[in-house]
């Protein structure tokens, strides 16, 4: 099967001259879950924003199902690094938002408000927010807010789900619980998933394949396959496959970090010599 979502050697340089990504290539097959792991500031969010069509790479191309991506599309559901809920809307109104925007209403089954209400209720149950339908975002904890945002990303049943360190701001225990929940939700949603994170265990737990990135500017430093069956559970942490994937990813990450450090030190030395 050929790749469904492709970042073809994309480079992104911001207006202030910061080079966030350099010739980054990523190929995601339909139905696959790929995790991109890299240190903070290596351009992970930038990569997802490019995949979502929010920014156009300065070089290279993002392709979705063979078509170049130049602007955001309904094919993609995005979960940002922060919940990004609208404070003046209740949880259920926040989740329903995508259907009010960009002609999404026309994608509803004809004239069916009850369908939408059912869909939102189902999603609220799925992400474990029952009882908080009418709550405003300020009444939610960070984890609950992020779950509401996940429900919103799923509501239009987009074929692609992009996840930007969704649980990065949460405590370790909550994070593990939500990661496991996310795996279940993702399986049920039959979407293609791309997750960026700096947590290796999280990447191994969720992904079929892990792409390791170098520090900024982000470049692919290596790929790790995760041959674990689904559904996944944290008990698998002790399985040799889990441990091996963790170790490979970690050594790739470390190698990438050291390589850049040496390169920079070298440049420093030459600069001083000159």
């Amino acid at each position, binding site marked *: 099967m050929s790749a469904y979502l492709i970042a073809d050697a994309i480079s992104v340089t911001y207006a202030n001259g910061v080079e966030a990504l350099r010739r980054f290539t990523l190929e995601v097959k339909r139905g696959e879950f790929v995790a991109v792991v890299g240190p903070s500031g290596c351009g992970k969010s930038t990569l997802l924003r490019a995949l979502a*069509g*929010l920014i156009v790479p300065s070089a290279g191309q993002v392709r979705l199902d063979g078509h170049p991506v130049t602007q*955001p599309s309904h094919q993609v559901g*995005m979960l*940002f690094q922060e919940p990004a809920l609208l404070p003046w809307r209740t949880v259920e109104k926040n989740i329903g*938002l995508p259907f009010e*925007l*960009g002609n999404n209403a026309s994608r509803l089954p004809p004239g069916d408000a009850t369908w939408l209400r059912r869909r939102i209720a189902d999603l609220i149950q799925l992400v474990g927010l029952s009882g908080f339908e009418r709550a405003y975002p300020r009444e939610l904890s960070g984890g609950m807010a992020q779950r509401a945002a996940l429900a919103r990303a799923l509501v239009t049943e987009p074929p692609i789900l992009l996840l930007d360190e969704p649980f990065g701001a949460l405590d370790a225990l909550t994070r593990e619980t939500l990661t496991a929940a996310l795996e279940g939700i993702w399986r049920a949603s039959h979407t293609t998933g791309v997750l960026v994170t700096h947590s290796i265990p999280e990447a191994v737990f969720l992904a079929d394949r892990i792409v390791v990135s170098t520090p900024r500017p982000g470049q692919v430093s290596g790929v790790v396959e995760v041959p674990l069956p689904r559904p996944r559970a944290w008990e698998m942490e002790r399985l040799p496959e889990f441990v091996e994937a963790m170790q490979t990813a970690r050594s790739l990450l470390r190698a990438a970090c050291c390589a850049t450090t040496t390169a920079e030190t070298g440049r420093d030395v030459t600069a001083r010599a000159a």
Partner: protein
Amino acid sequence: MSAISQASKLRSGAQASSGAQGKHNAGPRWRIWAMRMGPAALFMLFVAAWHLASLRYPPFILPGPAPVAGRFLAELFSGALLYHTGATLSEALPGLLIGALAAFLLGYPIAKSRLADRLLSPFIVASQGIPFIAIAPLLLIWFGPGAAAKIFLCAIVVFFPIAVNIIAGIRSIKPLLRDLFRSMSATHWETFVKLELPAALPMSLTGLRIGATLSMIGAITAEFLGTDRGLGFLINQGRGLYDTELVLVGITATVITALCIYGTVRLAEQWLTGYHR
């Protein structure tokens, strides 16, 4: 912590356990009392001081609170006060509305576009430097003695605080929320209605609240310069006749009206942005 505040804390604790005070963190008893009765008590203090001061001066310099209150009621029941208040409101409210509309029409592009900001902001700031009491006569020359000049002056006076708040409100929208709307393919109109308007609403209403009281000042200033009705006219008339009572009645009516407009906007604010609390 001092012994006194500790003692009063103990007392308020005892009170709470007896069920008299349900609220947490309300603090010691004197503070609860001050919160509830404070404004009224301060007002009484002010009236008392006024009364004492009035004993030392003849009534045409400083009439006491009792005669002013009596005169206030007399003017109220004769209908004169309501007539003049209505006249002033009929200038202040349209002025407020027009000023707010102009603030939005100019403020929105300024908040959104750097070019508009660069082109328009200097003039808006400069307009604040004009003492509006100085342009009032100009407006009377241009628009005549009718309501138009007064409405126009009110609009000018309220424009700046409202515009500043609208601009700050729209600029305070997080880039993340803009990205969210873009990622969901929102049109400009949808972004405006579902993101920018509600996000800028709290600050815009703060501006409107400030503008509301200013609009009364604008209307009365304009009325001072030539008209035959309105609270400004009433005050001016009292001044001409050395009827100091009437001047104070006019000022009191102005303050009460301003408080009412302020309160109305405040209520609207609480109703519209209740999700904050």
